């Protein structure tokens, strides 16, 4: 699987190369700024991309803008955005582009190699990988409707919103698939959401619900 990375910090980019190389990824190119990244994507047509939010020259939100532009130029291009901090505004902007996998993770997560590689594969396959902190921000914001959920249901909701499938949720919470299925049924019923299939669309439905601050009615 070929990867294009946009990361100006050499410490981090060499770290990523090392880690991804060991996990069986092929690094097609490492760009140091937004323009270089867009050129590399045009040239290499990677299977997945990793973009740092802050890039030269102004070290503001160039990475987000580059990621959005790359997805406009290449619809369906999977993008995983890394950042030193998470901001749900950025998550909302990334999710607003349709088609293709989207990820938004704290840089800290890279150190959990398995989790990070899993997230990258999910994004490459067209899935979603949202940082637990983004989801926590969204859940906190959604307020009342979420309060009706049991603590276990809230855990399941958070993992589901992060982009995990039933299997992964079951493994992480050490419960059976069946139990996960039941919890998800309850969550959708309590939030007034129509139950969709277990794939990416379900994640998007949950994220859209949280993004709207829990104001959205069921569909």
């Amino acid at each position, binding site marked *: 699987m070929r990867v294009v990375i946009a990361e100006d910090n050499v410490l981090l980019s060499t770290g990523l190369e090392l880690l991804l190389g060991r996990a069986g990824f092929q690094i097609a190119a490492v760009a140091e700024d937004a323009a270089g990244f867009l050129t590399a994507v045009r040239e290499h047509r990677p299977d997945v991309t990793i973009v740092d*939010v*802050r890039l030269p020259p102004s070290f*503001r939100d160039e990475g987000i803008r580059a990621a959005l532009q790359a997805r406009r130029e290449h619809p369906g291009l999977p993008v995983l955005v890394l950042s*030193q*901090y998470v901001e749900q*505004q950025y998550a909302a902007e990334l999710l607003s582009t349709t088609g293709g996998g989207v990820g938004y993770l704290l840089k*800290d997560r890279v*150190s959990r190699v398995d989790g990070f590689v899993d997230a990258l594969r999910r994004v490459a396959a067209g899935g979603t990988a949202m940082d637990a902190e983004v989801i926590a921000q969204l859940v906190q*914001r959604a*307020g009342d409707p979420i309060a009706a959920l049991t603590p276990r249901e809230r855990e399941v909701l958070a993992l589901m919103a992060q982009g995990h499938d039933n299997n992964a949720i079951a493994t992480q919470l050490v419960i059976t698939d069946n139990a996960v299925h039941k919890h998800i049924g309850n969550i959708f019923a309590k939030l007034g959401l129509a139950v969709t299939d277990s794939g990416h669309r379900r994640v998007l439905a949950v994220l859209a619900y949280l993004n709207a601050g829990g104001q959205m009615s069921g569909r």
Partner: protein
Amino acid sequence: MTSSRRWGRWAWVRRCGVYLLGSLLSGVATVLALPLLCIPGPSRLWADWHRYRAGRLLGAPFASRPALRATGRRARADSATVRTSRALLWLPANALAGVVFGLPALLCTGNIVVALIATPLWWAFRPEDRPRLFIDVPVTGWATALTLGPLQILLLTGLAYVGFAPIARAHARICLVVLSHSTNDELAERVAVLTRTRADVLDAHGAELRRIERDLHDGTQARLVAIAMRLAVARQAFSDNPRDEQFVEGLLREAHEGTEEAMTELREVIRSVYPPILADRGLDGALTAVATGCGVPTRLDIGDLERVPPAVEAVVYFTVAEALTNVTRHSQATAAGVRVSRTADRLSVVITDNGTGGADDRRGTGIAGIRRRVLALDGTVEVDSPAGGPTAITVELPCGW
């Protein structure tokens, strides 16, 4: 001289006359009401009124405050002391100047009135009460009345025409000299205000640096030391006995977890120093992110702010973020509003909600935190939150540097 200009001149003379008679009256009133006017409050009002009319007469701009507003409590007290001492000095000056400058105007006007009455109506008075013209000449027949009367009117009117304006201007100038801040006073006051606010800002800055130092020292640095020690022990254990995997694995796991905790703490420190979203998107974008992220629907209204110093931006951001967190947590509001606007040298932020009110410094640390940050920049915080609501928090920050 055209007739309209002549009329203009006459209107001006009349205005000066009224001013001088008013000054005479106020001079007398000052003497009569002296005990009352020695109280700082009334004396300052009395002085302000005189300065206002003197300024209007001279066409000078009326500025009741020094160019730089003193916003600190101590600085305001200083400014008040200067104003009070000048207002008290004005009391004798006013009494003296009012009489000296006002009396000629009164005599002049009075004698014109006397002549106006005496000339046609001298006969209506009893012989022993006959009006006198030119101070001591009694009018006893039409001959004197028709010669001396118009002469007196003419002479005194001419005198008024020539004299009232310069006399009134002289009085007004004296008034402004006594009551206005001299350039020196103004500069001294500015320096006093700036010295104080600068000291406060430096104090706050120092406290902030110490907090950051402590956070990094006790948190991140300590964690890194702990991680390094675990890695060192793990290396040693590995070289001593490569098969003791469980022990080495345990150390590595702890070291790994330590790095994650260090990263989380470091992120918090960074966020508290300068919010990253503010660096990324500026005040406008950062506030938009806060408002859209708020659990309560929030209307955001940002005026034309021009250039705002980063320190002020950071305080505005913290204020809005903290206030909206309070709205979400405590107010039970269904709508909130944030308005940021700028006048020449002040940035004002108003956060409102339609919740249950009762917000104060004691409940939670939110408002106390806002106050601490705002005061450090010499700003003001007003919390209007009656029980039952609604709540409005108004923050004003100087940003004219």
